[in-house]
């Protein structure tokens, strides 16, 4: 199971990095999104993977890691999701502004002169 998720994270990272290194802003934004999936999963996985562990406590009860999922990485991922959502939105706006002002969607704001 760990292997599957690790490989999955690896593929997401690889795809994300590939896109991150591309010259078009849209490629970069997709790459960053893929990377943030990968990172979210990565954070999530640091708490260990458990299928069927209770994510929620019984009313009045005390939870233990033996029976419950590690909530900390989950909370961290939630924060990270929100932040990456926000920054993706911002990046989109900035890339649109750049596209509008420069006339190109190249990340450098000008077509490569070679």
């Amino acid at each position: 199971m760990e292997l599957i998720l690790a490989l999955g994270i690896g593929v997401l990272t690889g795809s994300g990095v590939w896109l991150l290194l591309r010259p078009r802003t849209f490629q970069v934004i997709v790459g960053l999104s893929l990377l943030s999936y990968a990172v979210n999963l990565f954070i999530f996985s640091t708490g260990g993977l458990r299928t069927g562990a209770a994510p929620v406590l019984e009313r009045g009860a005390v939870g233990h890691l033996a029976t419950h999922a590690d909530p900390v990485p989950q909370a961290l991922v939630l924060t990270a999701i929100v932040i990456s959502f926000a920054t993706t939105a911002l990046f989109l706006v900035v890339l649109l502004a750049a596209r509008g002002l420069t006339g190109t969607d190249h990340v450098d704001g000008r077509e490569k002169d070679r």
Partner: protein
Amino acid sequence: MITELLVWSIFLAQILLVLAMGCAVFRILRGPRAQDRVLGLDTLYVNATMLLLIFGIRTTSTLYFEAALIIALLGFVSTAAIAKFLMRGEVIE
């Protein structure tokens, strides 16, 4: 015995659904045209909803219901948005 049967059918159902998801993704990847891909995504959403519901049964937990509910309630919004984009070149006019 019966429990085992249930466990196995849950497992089988999940496999079937994942295969179904695979078909949908194939269509997304293959196209040939945008509308085919959107259709694939929509199918993917529906299949995922079912997968989540079955996962709830598998773990006897109702906690995953909301996720399924959200797909059913809001999953269509993104596909509708893409359809709008195809038809009008713009999502919000």
